[in-house]
Each structure stands twice: as C-alpha cells, then as structure tokens.
C-alpha cells in the first residue's frame, strides 16, 4: 500500500455518457506507467480527472495516501502532481522563459527556480537558445518540449504526460521518447498516455490497455509489447 498514486474504480461521465467506467491502477514511485488505447478510450479523461480538471462521479483517487477527489485543479499541482495537457497548451504569446517561470508559479525559492530553468535548458537545449522568443513561434515538437519542461518546473512527484507524441514528425517523436527515457533514468515518476503503443510500452514498467472506458489488459511493458492481441490491435500487425 505504498504506491504513489492509487486509482480505484474511477468513473467519470460527461453528462449521461460515462467515459471512464470504473478503472483501477497504481503508479509506484520511480515507475513509468502508461495508458494506451485508441481515440475515445478514456485516457485523456482519466488524466484530466486526476489533475482536477474534471470531477469523477465515483471511485477513489489517492495520491501519497491523500484523496484527490475534492481537491480543485489549481491545488493539485501544489500536492506534487503535474499535468502536461493534451495539445500542449503552452502560452503562445509569452516567451519560453516566462512559460517556464509560470510552471514554477507556486514556488517561492528563487535560486531553486533559476536552477530548474537551467535544468530545463540542459534537457532541451533548443529552449535555451530561444529563451526570449515567443513560445508560439516554436515548432510542434519544440512546444511539446516546452510543455514538458514547464510541467517539470513545479518539481512534481508525479509527471502526467498526455500524448506527448501527438502530431509530431517521427524524428521529433523519437526525441521526445528519448527525453522521457532520460527523465525515467533520473528517477522521475511518470504517468504516460499515448496512442503510440510501441514507443510507450518499450519505455514503461507497467502498461494498461484501455478500450471504451475500461482497462482490458494490464501487464509489464515488455509483456504487453509481445502480447498477441496488443500487437494485432495497436501495433498494426496481423
């Protein structure tokens, strides 16, 4: 019972339509856990619920043993749960540096913030080169890097990435995945939502396959990668 994040029988609905129909999973500290599945499987809904943007209709979310069900979105961050939303949601008209600073909005330790900004630039050198440039002028992949860098600025215990590879060129996607691997190696706990099952599963310690609101299959990343039905459904093999 020492998992960092525990989700139990979580149910989320948009009006009458239930998008997440009672899913349960755990994320242990230091792990990379991935949710994969097709469009409309409920992956993004799950993440948005975890970060407080949506309210669940049932079930339990415990982070560090504390229930997140009643916590408003802006306070979830202060508990150590950072969300890099789908579609990146960077602030296009602010500079890259200001974007990163907003990621540290709740922090007050100036030297620590400067150090972490530098760390983001080390992780993504392109951001450092363009720190004074409007974020909207970045390419899609660079914006994704910024979104990840910004989420890390809150020093989260758990980083939630929603489809970081969406709409990226293959080269850029590889680069993003390599960065996630790097973050994993440095001990960051990550909950990764992806449509790119191959890339996500090869990184993940644990994987869960979602279909229309339910988890239909769970296992280690490697097991799922070799699983017959997963290969058929998500990796385009027959």
């Amino acid at each position, binding site marked *: 019972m020492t998992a960092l994040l525990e989700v139990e029988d979580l149910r989320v609905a948009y009006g009458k339509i239930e998008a997440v129909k009672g899913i349960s999973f755990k994320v242990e500290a230091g792990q990379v856990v991935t949710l994969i599945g097709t469009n409309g499987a409920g992956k993004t809904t799950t993440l948005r619920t975890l970060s407080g*943007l949506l309210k669940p209709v049932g079930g339990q979310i415990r982070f560090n043993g504390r229930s997140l069900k009643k916590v408003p979105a802006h306070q979830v961050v202060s508990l150590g749960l950072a969300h890099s*939303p789908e579609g990146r*949601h960077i*602030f296009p008209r602010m*500079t890259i540096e200001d974007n990163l600073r*907003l990621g540290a*909005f709740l922090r007050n330790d100036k030297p620590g913030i400067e150090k972490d900004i530098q760390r983001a630039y080390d992780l993504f050198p*392109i951001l450092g080169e363009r720190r004074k*440039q*409007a974020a909207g002028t970045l390419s899609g992949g660079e914006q994704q890097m910024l979104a990840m860098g910004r989420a890390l600025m809150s020093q989260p215990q758990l980083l939630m990435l929603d489809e970081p590879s969406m709409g990226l060129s293959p080269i850029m996607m590889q680069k993003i995945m390599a960065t996630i691997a790097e973050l994993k190696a440095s001990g960051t706990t990550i909950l990764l939502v992806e449509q790119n099952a191959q890339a996500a599963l090869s990184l993940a310690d644990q994987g869960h396959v979602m279909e229309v609101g339910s988890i239909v299959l769970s296992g280690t990343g490697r097991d799922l990668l070799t699983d017959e039905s997963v290969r058929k459904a998500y990796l385009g093999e027959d």
Partner: protein
Amino acid sequence: MTTHTTAPGTPETPDTPDSNAPAATGLIGLPATVGRALATGGGALAVVSAFLAWTWTAEFPGDLTVYGYPGGLQVLVLIGGLFTTLFGLASYGVKGLKVLTPGNADSALKLAALGTFATAWYTVIAISAKLGGVVNLEPGGYLVALATLVALLGALALPFQRPEPDPADPDDTGWEAFRHRARQKRANFKAAFAAEPPAPGRTLPAWAEILVITGVMALGLLVFTYGIGTEYDELFIGFLLTAGFGFAALAKAGLVARISAITTRHRTVTMTGAFVAAAAFPFTQSDDQYATIGVYILIFATVALGLNIVVGLAGLLDLGYVAFLGVGAYTAALVSGSPSSPLHVHWPFWASALLGAVVAMIFGVLIGAPTLRLRGDYLAIVTLGFGEIFRITVLNMDGTSGPDVTNGSNGISSIPNLNILGFDFGQEHQLLGTTIGRFANYFLLMLLITLVVVVVFRRSSDSRIGRAWIAIREDETAALAMGINGFRVKLIAFALGACLAGLAGSVQAHVTYTVTPEQYQFAHVVPPNSAFLLAAVVLGGMGTISGPLVGASLLYLIPAKLQFLGDYQLFAFGVALVLLMRFRPEGLIPNRRRQLEFHEDTAAPAVLSKAGA
C-alpha cells in the same frame, strides 16, 4: 489621395510567372532621381509658401492673409514641409541628417509628403468651400497646393521593394481575377510605405538619453497643448492630419522605435518626465478654459487605465465598468457635506477618497464573485446588466420609489469644492507667476490620482499576479494546470479595477459639482461611459499604460473639438472602431513587450534544422 492606389503599378503578367525579380520602381513612373528632387524641392517650396498669403480675407479663421508671417493652418503646413524637406535631404544621405532616419528614409519621405499634401489641400479646399470658390485663393494658396502635389508625386515615384507577385490561377473567373489583381495592388501599395524596423542604435551616454527623453516629453506637451488649444474645427482637423501623418512618418523613419528603446531603458525617468510634462500643462494656459478639458480628459484616461487592468491584463470584458466610477463619485458626494446629501457629514478628502475606493472595491467583489465564473461573452452580458442596475437603482433611491439616499434623477448637487490643508480648490491661486484656476487645481490633483493608477498598473503587471492574469487570459486550462487559482486571480483584477475607478470617481464628484445617474450610462455622448472607456482601451492598445491615455485623449478631444459631428458622433466612432479593428487590431500603441516577443529573431531556420538532427 486614394486615387493613387490605382496608379500604374507594374501589373504582373500571370502567364509568365518566371519573370525575374521585379525591378525596384515607384508607384508613379518617374525616374527615382527626379522624384527625390521633386519631393525635397516641393517640401521646401511648401515651407516658403507658408509665409505667403493664401486668401484675401480674414473671414477664414486663422488669418491666412499676411505675407511673411504664417498663421493657423499655415503653421501646420510649414511643419509638414519642413519634415518633408528634412527627410528628403536625409534620403540623399546628407551627413548629420542620417540620425533622423535610422529606418527607411524613403518611406518616411512618402508619408511626410502625403501628410503635408493632405493638410495643405484640406486647407485650400476648406477655404474655397467656406468662402465660395477658388477665386478666394491668393497666389500663395495656389503655390502651396502645387508644391505639396509635386512633393507627393515625387515621393510616390521613389522606388521600393515590390512584394513577390503571387501567380494568378489561369482558371480564375473574371471576378476572381479581379479580386486577385486588387489584392496584388494592395500588397504593392502597402509595400510602398513599408519600413523594416531599424537596427538597434548604439547606446548613448545616460545623460544624453535622458536629454532625449526630456526633449520628447517637451515635444509631447507642445503637441498636446497645441491640439487642446485649437480654436476652430478646421485647425483641429489640420492638427489631426499633420500629427497623424507626422507620427507615421517618424515611425517609418525609425525614430519611434529608437525612442521607445531609449524610454524602455529609462522607464522611471520616462514616467517622471511624462508626469512633469503633464503637470506643466496648466502653467502653459492663460485661463481655465482648456484646463477644464484637461481635467475631464484625465478623469476619463485614469478610469480607462483602470479598466485596462481588467480588460487588457486579465482579459475580462467588462461592459459596466463606469458603474464603479459612479459608486466612487456617489460615495464621495454623500460624505462631501453637500446640502442635498441625506448624510450631513463633511469628511476630509483623504477619507472620502479612501471610502470611495473601498466602497467601489466592495461592489467589485460583490459583482465579481458570482459573475467571474462565467467566461467571455457571458461575462460581458452580465457586467452590462450590472452597470445598468447601478444606474437604475441610483435613479430609484429618491425617497418615493425607494429609500431617500441619492435624490433620484436630480442627483446630489452643490458638492462643495475640496479644501486640502487650507488649499481651496475653488479659488484661483498664484503659482510660479501663473494664475491657476479652479479646473487647473483639480487637474493637478487628478494628475496625482492618475500617477497612483499608473504606478499600480505598472507594479501589478510586472508582478506575480500580473503574470497570472496574462496566463489566465491566454489559456485558462493551462493556467489551472500551473496551479493558478483562476477565480481568485480574476476577482483580484476586478476588485482592483473597481477600486481605482472609485478613487477617480471621488475626485470627479467634486470637479462636476453634481453627480447624477445619467453620467454613468453604458453609452452616452459624453465620455466617460462604459462604451467609451472600452473604446479608449481598445483604440489605444490593450495592456499598455500609454495606450488608454492616448485613446482617452483622442476620444475626448475629437467630439469636444469637432462640433459639427454633433448627432453623428456615435456613428463616427463606430465606423472608426470598425476600421481600426480591421487595419490595426493591436491598437494605436501596441503592447511593446509583447511585440518584442513576436519580432525578436523570428527568422532562425539554422536553429530549426539543428533541432531535427
């Protein structure tokens, strides 16, 4: 002027899209050397003609009948001609004048010539129309018309970099082809006046830069004092033409960018300078006539600046903002010792100003708390409603349809003049050898309030809360994900804006003697009202300090000066706003910081390819 849009620009030939790079030619088919000489010479000739008589009778205002002494509109043409000549000489590369045009001398020359032409021809046409025919023109009038025309034609002959023609689709229908050609023409025409932002100049020593700022502030005061002091419609229109084109020419010359770079380096000096220049305004006036306009402009501008926190920084569209000005004014009026106030108390100014600000802020929170959960249009509708609720409530609290508090439509009248530390605002005072009248007294007090609002605006926009406002405005979801409490942050913006408006209102009550409900409507012919306040912010530039100040000055001065607009005033503003939104959506003074972010090294393809590797 618009006839020149259809001047023979080299029409692109759709069948030969490979025709090599278009030759650099002007809009008018004259050799560039001839054009430059004509423009410069025409400018000089316009200067000379300003010293001649333009008409034979002093019936046209400004007395343009005197030889050797320019008057009224002639002075404006003189200034325009001077600029044209100077930019012309600078475009020849005359040493020492290069400093005038760090940007594009040719574009500056074109706009200066256009502005001079517009002012001169406006004058000549106004004389002819007013006095009944061109026979009323003296040789000077013909000369100035000719000189400015020659200068304009010469300037338009100057070569410019034409945009790459976009090959037409051969399958286009006639209408599509026509539209394509029109688009092409427009692009060409725009390119004729285009100017690259100047390369950053070398940094002058600090004292020299401060001297430059002082000069600019003095110039600003001069222009403002001239504009506010124009005595007849024609002169004010001429002033608008000259000032507008003059500013555009300076912008193209790159001087505006240079100066704003300097003022950015010395923000505190700039602010102090602007404040001192504004404070000097009453001392340039011999009577209280224009100080009246000055103090109303200041009230309007201060409230607009407060609204800019709500609209420009936090992105909340508030259509009922004038209600907070009303709350402040009514609160101050109630405790002012006015005989028509049911509260027979007479508080000192500091207490009533504080009370006005606090009560307005409480109203801001009360109105904001339920409404700020709405987004965008819904918030606008609800604030519009609350603005009207305030006005109607005040109207009804007259003792018959409600409690007797505000005297209904009669308002609270005979509000006594302020008296701070024995300084009676109703009396004339001798200060620095000048007589400072009632309105000038209030002007100086109001200026202090403006300063407070400017400081609050600046401090808050640079602070943590300012960043949070911008984040909420840009992307509320992402801001929440950053841990920003959207509702609280918006409520702070709303309350702060209300508080500043209330502060301004507490002075306004004393300036106007009387507060009545219809002063605080949504739309009304006299600013400030919610519609005009919003227009001032949008026109001037959202999120800036100088934007609403400039916007409010224009929106107040134009109806005050152009009496003939009369009933068409609101219509004219509607048209002006639509045009502005179409052609310059960022406002007259765009947010500099944001612009910098957009334009700083946008072209860095080398870096891009490195990222891919």
